[in-house]
């Protein structure tokens, strides 16, 4: 499959400090690629370089065969990509239709009113067509953001945290739209903090930490390679004296005890589960997940729920 994006040894530095430190990755055409990383990992800088919004320090980036950094090529790239920034904003006093029309006219061979109607319908915005942007809810705004990102029929879509702040229903609606975009042949580059979102949507994932890519592959690959294996979690373990004797600082978080099932024999597991159930504790079995892999690769969660980045 042909590459839509090729990043080779990309470096971006500020005052001599590399915030993107020689990363390389490819995004194949027609796939959903997710870039993950904690805040400050360099993923937004990387994406903005690919989007031609920031100059690179060294390395090379090619988008659809055009070179980022070359002025003429950048104009071509901008015509062929669509962007939905995090918490999409448009002109407050303009209606949904007017905002779509405005953005459509910023591209060559701008869309006719029929195309605008089609996009409005495709993203379920008919009833909001004449509503001003300032009066839209968060979910509708994100839908409008997606509509605007696709109005000029781009080949690659960059979606930055597309579902942040949305309720579960709106989030699933946006997921369905992203899947539909992929099905129509678009390449999608996604950044997200929601692991379940990435697991659900992405074909390929790259995890960044401190300006470097620390893992890449499919979500399942990463989960099995870097995840913690199958786990048993027991909530409220401190109420059981025996269970409390199994606890140490590495396998507890708050009042939750997490045990790796790969390291325990099945008889002991059965005994622990039996004891926990008799004491009325909540017991869960978990398969390896992307979230575990992510946490193991970039850091750990402290007792207050904060992400502590490794190293």
């Amino acid at each position, binding site marked *: 499959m042909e590459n839509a994006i090729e990043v080779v040894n990309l470096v971006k530095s500020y005052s001599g400090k590399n915030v993107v430190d020689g990363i390389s990755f490819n995004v194949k055409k027609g796939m959903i690629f997710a870039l993950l990383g904690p805040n400050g990992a360099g993923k937004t800088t990387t994406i903005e370089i690919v*989007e*031609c*919004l920031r100059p690179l320090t060294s390395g090379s980036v090619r988008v659809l065969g055009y070179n980022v950094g070359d002025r003429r090529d950048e104009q071509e790239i901008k015509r062929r990509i669509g962007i939905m*920034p995090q918490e999409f904003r448009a002109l407050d006093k*303009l209606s949904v239709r007017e905002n779509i029309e405005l953005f459509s006219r910023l591209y060559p061979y701008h869309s006719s009113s029929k195309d605008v109607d089609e996009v409005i319908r495709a993203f379920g915005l008919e009833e909001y067509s004449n509503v001003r942007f300032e009066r839209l809810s968060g979910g509708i705004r994100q839908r409008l953001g997606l509509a605007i990102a696709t109005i000029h029929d781009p080949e690659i879509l960059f979606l930055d945290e597309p579902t942040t702040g949305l309720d579960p229903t709106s989030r699933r609606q946006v997921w369905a739209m992203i899947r539909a975009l992929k099905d129509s042949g678009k390449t999608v580059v996604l950044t997200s903090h929601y692991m379940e979102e990435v697991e659900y949507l992405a074909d390929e994932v790259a995890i960044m930490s401190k300006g470097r890519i620390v893992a890449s592959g499919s979500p399942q690959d990463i989960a099995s390679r870097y995840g913690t294996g199958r786990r048993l979690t027991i909530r409220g373990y401190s109420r059981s004296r025996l269970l409390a004797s199994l606890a140490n600082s590495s396998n507890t978080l708050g009042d939750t005890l997490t045990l790796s099932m790969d390291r325990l024999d099945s008889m002991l597991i059965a005994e622990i589960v039996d004891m926990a159930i008799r004491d009325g504790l909540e017991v869960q079995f978990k398969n390896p997940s992307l979230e575990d892999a992510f946490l193991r690769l970039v850091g750990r969660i402290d007792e207050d729920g904060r992400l502590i980045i490794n190293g």
Partner: protein
Amino acid sequence: MKMDINSHLVAVASLARALLLDWLRSKTGAFFTILFPIMLMVMLTLAFNDDLNRLDLYVQNLDLDHDGMPTETSSSLIKLLSSSMLNIKHIPADVDAYEYVKYSTNKRVLIIPYGFDASIRAKSMEARMAVMLSTLDLFIERSWVQDGVRTSMISGMEGLQRELALRNGDKTASGGNATNAPPALARLLLIVDSSKDREYERVEGILASIVAMLQQSTIDAPDILRMEVKDVSTTERANYYLPSVLAAFIMTNGVLGTSGIVADFKRRGMLKRLMSTPLSRLQWIIANMMAQTILALILASVMVCIAVIALNTTLPNAISMVVLAIGALCFTGLGMLIAGALKDPHAITGASNAIAFPMMFLSGTFWPIGSMHEYMQSIAYALPLTYFIDALNASMYQSSILALQSTSMLALFAIVFVTLGSYLTRWKQE
């Protein structure tokens, strides 16, 4: 997929339209852009109108005797004025009455010139002699007196006239020619600014009746005393405020509007969103300039219509529209320059306010620059708004040639601001 000229124009026009709509649909935007300037213009015009009951008259008495005391006739005149409807106030003899009227409001000054008393007395004596001589001629004609008596009576009266003149300080009266020159007409000078003073005609009428009364009390003879009126105004009152308020608001819209849009777009990520489209930095700048120029022309049209209908001003010519457009470009350029030079959106807003508001007060928007302190005047002439107001004033109410110099200066500022603004506007993140 090349972008042709038509697509470029469509992109710029669409963005300009969107910026304009976004601005005009904002209630506060529309209030401060359109309604507030109109209200201010009407308020200023009305505020500096006279109170109907206030008939102040400033009197500058220059007719003083050797001891610096007012002469007898000038004192009598002032007493007469004080007993009328006029509220008499005095201004010192060393004040320039023309400047006083020109650069202040509700002021009208009556100047009693030096020699007023002497002229009145001489003219009065001349009139009395004429009456006596015509009476004497009648007596001679009827042979009631001899011709020689007439000669000695004329000689006696001329002697008396010379003595009076000497007593009043007229040194030429002692010379042989004094009696030959006819005495000068006594004159009063009323200085008004009709653009600021709607009551000056009423005051003039009262003064005319007082002058007539004075003539009658002196001797019932015409042409002893004459009052002249000097109007120092160059424009109608509303004509003064229309260009200055218009210019000031085009300036604030340009500077605050443009920098505000850039700051807001930066803060909300809209600018980044626009940068990600094929829209170029130049198109972004042109779109902003188009939006501000159209806004300036809308504001000008509405304000002019209201000023013409409600305040009876004259209709501005087409050249002033060109000046308006240059002004809008100049201040949009300044807004772009501020927004380009500063990264922080809050700093952009603060800096724009810090530049726009002092400029509004220092450039003769609300009062003439001539009334300001000298060093403030030199600051005023370094500010583009001063030239914008001058150019608008000249193009609207004087002549296109007069407007040329200020318009050239304004255009120069526009070129500098737009060039620097374009240079400093970054179309990429760092």
